[in-house]
């Protein structure tokens, strides 16, 4: 078995026992990247030299006998909307084609402090708006399990490089499903943490009240390990808060006897493909066999989740993306003598059409005369959704649902109709609206050998419960560390 095929947990042990060096590991992962990246195109930037230098530094520290954190020397890919000091951070947009942040995101600082080796910046839908990675201004990313398929989005690059063995773990961000849906499409594990658990400082904002950074890995253990690195309150992010738990990795326990698992009937209805429904229901049966109590619940407000999500996220985006005006950084339209024209041309030329659609919608729902009917009402409805989940968690410990209506579709198949694309977010957006944690992991394959994912949703700060339930299924199903053949 090559090093790139191993999980972060396995690599951590090999590094700690000095059976391998971080440089050897980085070289192997970079070699794999060299071999497959032309087909996958999961990265915007591969930081080969910096990665080798970081790996060397970790090896030196280890040789000097310094105590090192568990993931020291393990390679990690970082989504290209997370600021990395001195490393191009483009958000896969022409608008930031040349932007090199003079600061690190808090999570990037944490990666560095834990000795992780950044392999590169992962491709994404522009400014995290999209579900297929086709909205990247750089290039589309291909699903390693079927290169003519999308990897999902917006964190499609982060999911694809992990599935392709170009990095054992990665960071993505999730505003409406942007970690979970690509995890599902690429057959990897992805966790969207509780809102506030991970600092957003340095994450280029899409929708501040919904955005959350989270980990990808090829095993539940790896996701727990990387979660331990990034979770924590940050005084630079007013919305971050202290998680009421210690190491999630130390707390892993695959016992699900007596665990109450709710299956919300609305998530299994029309619009969900037969293969996806069957895959997730089979997982439910596995849980039953493991001693969990599985029963049907109802979350009727999911019907309104898409409008609420698209109103809130677009409203915030219209304001968050206003700073991209051609004045201070990034793209500026040339040959313009008037400041307003400079704004208009820089923004119209710098933003892709999906970003412009969201900005238009967001501006509309906040504008005079429409605010109450859209934005204000959506905020009020958000309270209802939170209350509905709170009620559900009175009855069950975790909620099990599909991640997306279908498995990964073909590149170009849905990219012409925004509404069809938005409909694919139906199973994931409620979690962001309610600020809850949710984890996705593979639960099978469809007839075309494309992965099927399942989603476990927990109450606020229920991360340990999700990881434990996920670990139980992973062990029972053997669906772990799936690397695309390529």
């Amino acid at each position, binding site marked *: 078995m090559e090093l790139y095929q191993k999980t972060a947990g396995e690599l951590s042990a090999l590094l700690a026992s000095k059976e391998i060096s971080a440089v050897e590991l980085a070289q192997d992962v970079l070699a794999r990247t060299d071999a497959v990246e032309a087909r996958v195109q999961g990265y915007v930037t591969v930081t080969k030299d910096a990665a080798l230098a970081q790996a060397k530094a970790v090896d030196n520290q280890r040789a000097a006998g310094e105590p090192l954190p568990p993931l020291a020397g393990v390679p990690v890919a970082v989504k290209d909307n997370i600021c990395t000091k001195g490393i191009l951070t483009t958000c896969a947009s022409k608008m930031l084609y040349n932007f*090199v942040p003079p600061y690190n995101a808090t999570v990037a600082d944490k990666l560095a402090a834990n000795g992780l080796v950044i392999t590169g910046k992962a491709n994404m839908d522009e400014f995290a708006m999209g579900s297929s990675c086709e909205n990247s201004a750089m290039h589309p990313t291909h699903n390693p399990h079927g290169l003519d398929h999308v990897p999902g989005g917006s964190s499609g690059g982060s999911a694809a490089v992990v599935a392709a063995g170009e990095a054992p773990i990665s960071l993505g961000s999730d505003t409406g499903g942007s970690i979970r849906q690509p995890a599902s499409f690429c057959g990897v594990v992805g966790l969207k943490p509780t809102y506030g658990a991970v600092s957003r400082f340095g994450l280029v904002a899409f929708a501040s009240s919904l955005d959350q950074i989270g980990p990808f890995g090829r095993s539940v253990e790896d996701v727990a390990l990387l979660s331990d690195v990034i979770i924590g309150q940050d005084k630079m992010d007013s919305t971050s808060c202290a998680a009421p738990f210690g190491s999630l990795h130390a707390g892993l326990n695959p016992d699900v006897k007596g665990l109450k698992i709710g299956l919300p009937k609305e998530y299994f209805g029309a619009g969900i493909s037969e293969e996806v429904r069957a895959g997730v229901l089979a997982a439910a049966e596995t849980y039953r066999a493991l001693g969990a109590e599985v029963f049907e619940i109802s979350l009727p407000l999911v019907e309104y989740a898409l409008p609420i999500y698209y109103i809130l996220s677009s409203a915030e985006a219209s304001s968050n993306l206003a700073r991209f005006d051609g*004045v201070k950084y990034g793209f500026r339209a040339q040959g313009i003598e008037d400041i307003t024209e400079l704004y208009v041309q820089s923004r119209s030329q710098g*933003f892709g059409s999906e970003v*412009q659609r969201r900005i238009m919608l967001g501006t509309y729902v906040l504008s005079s005369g429409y605010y109450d009917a*859209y934005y204000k009402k959506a905020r*009020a409805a958000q309270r209802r959704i939170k209350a509905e989940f709170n009620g559900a968690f009175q009855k069950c410990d975790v909620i099990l649902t599909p991640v997306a209506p279908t498995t990964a579709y073909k590149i170009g198949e849905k990219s012409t109709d925004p509404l069809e694309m938005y409909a694919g977010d139906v199973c994931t957006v409620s979690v962001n609206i309610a600020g809850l944690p949710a984890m996705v992991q593979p639960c099978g394959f469809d007839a075309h050998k494309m992965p099927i994912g399942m989603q476990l949703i927990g109450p606020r700060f229920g991360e340990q419960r999700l990881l434990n339930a996920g670990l139980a299924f992973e062990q029972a199903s053997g669906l772990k560390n799936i690397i695309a053949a390529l």
Partner: protein
Amino acid sequence: MAISRKEIEHIAVLARLDSTGGIFDRLAEDMQGIIGMVDKLQQLDLGDITDQIDTERKNALREDVAKPESNPEELIKPNAPDFQAGGVAVPRVVE
């Protein structure tokens, strides 16, 4: 709520997006459908639930301590499309 072409153009002005270019026609058309989708929210009866200040968490405040001066040549200049006289430069703004 149906939205007129004139309204969409007004929204584009607010958002500083070009409403004359070729892709705007397509954008305006998409907007109709998207607004139709979000209009589903109007069917939801919220009773007496209203928007209010979120109080789950309060008072993330910092102490009033200032840090030393910074160097704009390092912080601003490297990413600025046009940097002159110590700051970003723009076409002349008439106040």
